[in-house]
């Protein structure tokens, strides 16, 4: 469906069932949920990571202090007691079985003494604190454990490795890093589910409002937005909308009443004018010069009445008075009837009036008004087509909806003018300067507006093609979906 022929409300409703997926990404409520959940998940991840790194650093620095302390102490012993003394001390400390790990090695990193079996491969250079894996023999098992330590070069080319077993802490860390993605994932899932529910709830309320608006745009001014018992902001919005609708309905009624009374007030004097002229004419009797003048005055009056009636009809069509009188109609017989009515006139003018065969093309509309609009278009087409030309009338079904086409082979309207002509006839005031022809197209435009159709003037190469594009008949107008109300009832209970 071309976007121009569809009201936003209709689009909203249409997207409801058939294309749910795109809607999830298009609606503001869902978008907010996505953004919010994403921000929340990132925050949770950042918070956890920060805590993790901080805790780890604090624990590491504790371990490091202990190690530094031992290094200082053992170094002092070494300087005081020499290698043997240090080896004895290390042997004593190694046998305690605490978390302390010691290894004294020569310059080739071969073990001299300590509770580590071999020099860890990852630890080749002295200097910073590093974490490494080592193997520990317990009863008859060998387990790989995690340690953190530092290599200290002793005077005389020996190396001293002092470390602490941090395996328990390491396991906790591992646990933490493996559960972090799961935590974030869980946050995402729960956030999306909860947010989705909230968004759906919110959208349901909005849908009710939109559906009601669409029905009102469709002409049913008596519809109102359902108000829930909770007196939340949606209810406040609904109440405001309803108050606004009440006022609009009152105004529309007022406009109708004014139009009716203006019609009455103008018609009565016009009637009298015509009556008096006719009476005078009867008394004078035909044939005289005065009679001719009065006949001309009657003709002028009739022209005035025709224009007046056309204006009223346009006003009525624009006020949507006939919306209540729409029914499903087939355009094919409407086109046939109008073509049949104008065929002799076309023949008399030497113009071929062709009716393109069409299958049944059903729209929701007012037969009388569409017939009149079509008659005006055909009338114009015949008027502006020279002898020997042709006028084609078609009703056809396109993928976007039904179309009524009246194409002629006349002079047409230059493209720049065309836009202007359509523009011009959109507003009633602008076309007042040219009655007769002007109001004919104005009425067509008004009838098109009443049917949510678009009146387009196109190049027929040569000639003009006037197209009325009707939207697809929507199920909403006939059988308004009761879903909205059921849901509100469910929400209310």
């Amino acid at each position, binding site marked *: 469906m071309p976007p121009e022929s569809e009201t936003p409300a209709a689009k909203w409703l249409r997207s409801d069932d058939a294309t749910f997926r795109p809607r999830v990404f298009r609606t503001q409520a869902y978008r907010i949920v996505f953004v919010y959940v994403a921000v929340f998940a990132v925050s949770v991840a950042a918070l956890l990571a920060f805590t993790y790194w901080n805790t780890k650093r604090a624990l590491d620095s504790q371990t490091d202090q202990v190690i530094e302390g031992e290094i200082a102490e053992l170094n002092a012993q070494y300087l005081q007691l020499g290698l043997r003394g240090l080896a004895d001390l290390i042997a004593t400390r190694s046998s305690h079985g605490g978390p302390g790990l010691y290894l004294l090695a020569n310059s080739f990193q071969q073990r001299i003494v300590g509770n580590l079996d071999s020099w860890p491969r990852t630890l080749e250079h002295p200097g910073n604190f590093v974490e490494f894996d080592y193997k520990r023999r317990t009863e008859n098992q060998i387990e790989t454990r995690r340690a953190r330590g530092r290599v200290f070069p002793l005077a005389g080319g020996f190396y001293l490795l002092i470390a602490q077993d941090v395996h328990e802490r390491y396991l906790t860390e591992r646990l933490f890093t493996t559960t972090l993605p799961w935590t974030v994932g869980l946050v995402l899932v729960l956030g999306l589910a909860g947010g989705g529910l909230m968004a759906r709830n919110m959208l349901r309320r909005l849908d009710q409002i939109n559906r009601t608006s669409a029905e009102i745009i469709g002409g049913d001014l008596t519809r109102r937005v359902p108000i829930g018992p909770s007196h939340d902001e949606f209810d406040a919005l609904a109440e405001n909308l309803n108050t606004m609708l009440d006022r609009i309905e009152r105004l529309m009624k007022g406009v109708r009443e004014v139009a009716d009374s203006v019609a009455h007030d103008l018609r009565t004097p016009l009637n009298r004018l015509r009556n008096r002229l006719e009476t005078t004419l009867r008394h004078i009797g035909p044939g005289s010069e005065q009679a001719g003048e009065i006949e001309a005055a009657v003709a002028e009056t009739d022209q005035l009445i025709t224009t007046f009636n056309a204006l009223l009809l346009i006003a009525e069509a624009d006020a949507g008075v006939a919306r209540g009188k729409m029914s499903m109609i087939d355009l094919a017989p409407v086109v046939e009837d109008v073509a049949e009515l104008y065929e*002799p006139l076309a023949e008399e003018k030497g113009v071929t009036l062709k009716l393109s065969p069409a299958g049944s093309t059903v729209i929701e509309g007012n037969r009388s008004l569409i017939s*009149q609009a079509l008659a005006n278009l055909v009338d114009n087409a015949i008027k502006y087509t020279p002898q020997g030309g042709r006028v084609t009338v078609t009703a056809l079904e396109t993928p976007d909806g039904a179309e009524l086409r009246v194409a002629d082979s006349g002079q047409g309207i230059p493209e720049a003018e065309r836009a202007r002509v359509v523009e011009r006839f959109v507003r009633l005031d602008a076309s007042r300067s040219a009655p007769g022809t002007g109001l*004919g197209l104005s009425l067509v435009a008004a009838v098109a507006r009443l049917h949510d159709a678009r009146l387009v003037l196109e190049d027929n190469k040569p000639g003009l093609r006037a197209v009325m594009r009707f939207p697809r008949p929507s199920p909403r107008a006939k059988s308004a979906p009761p879903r909205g109300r059921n849901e509100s009832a469910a929400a209310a209970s």
Partner: protein
Amino acid sequence: MRILVVEDDLEAQRYLVNGLKEAGHVVDDAADGETGLTLALSRPYDVAIIDRMLPKMDGLKVVADMREHSNVTPVLFLSALSEVDDRVKGLKAGGDDYLTKPYAFVELLARIEALMRRRSPQAVKTRLQVGDLELDLLTRTAQRGGAAIDLQPREFRLLEYLMRHASQVVTRTMLLESVWEYHFDPQTNVIDVHISRLRAKIDKGFDTALLHTVRGAGYMIRAARV
């Protein structure tokens, strides 16, 4: 013919009454709904012309009450109300025809004559005849002077309507309403072209014309000597 005019606009009433009297009818008048209803129920009329908007009692109500009292006088509504749904309302309430103000007097005259004709009981006709022109409603064929005339379906309906109202003025609007079921005025008078086509079929080659144009009013079909 006796005609009842119920119209609250006194000038329009005077004009109507005078016009109808000049046309040879007997006319009673009332200026409000209640008086109009009393008159309609107390005396026999051939036709009643009733304004839609009347003081004291609305025109619709007057007709509805008449029908409730089994009064079948044909009623022509006059109305200054816009046509779109008022016409339907008027006919639903029991009106037989509906004319929007302002109207041409000849239009009114033609319509009330058609209404009065409708009232006189007609046997169900299967053939219509005007002079030597015959229309068979069962076989949907026409012939004049024994020679068959080939008619399009719409031409047949047009001729049928004219012949049912033979010797009466039939206006273009009446034809548009009853033959085409359109309630609007086409910009160009297409009816004239249809009539001249029909005329070419039924009158061409015959000494006497049956289908006549009534200047300033419409058309009439009648036998040469009436």
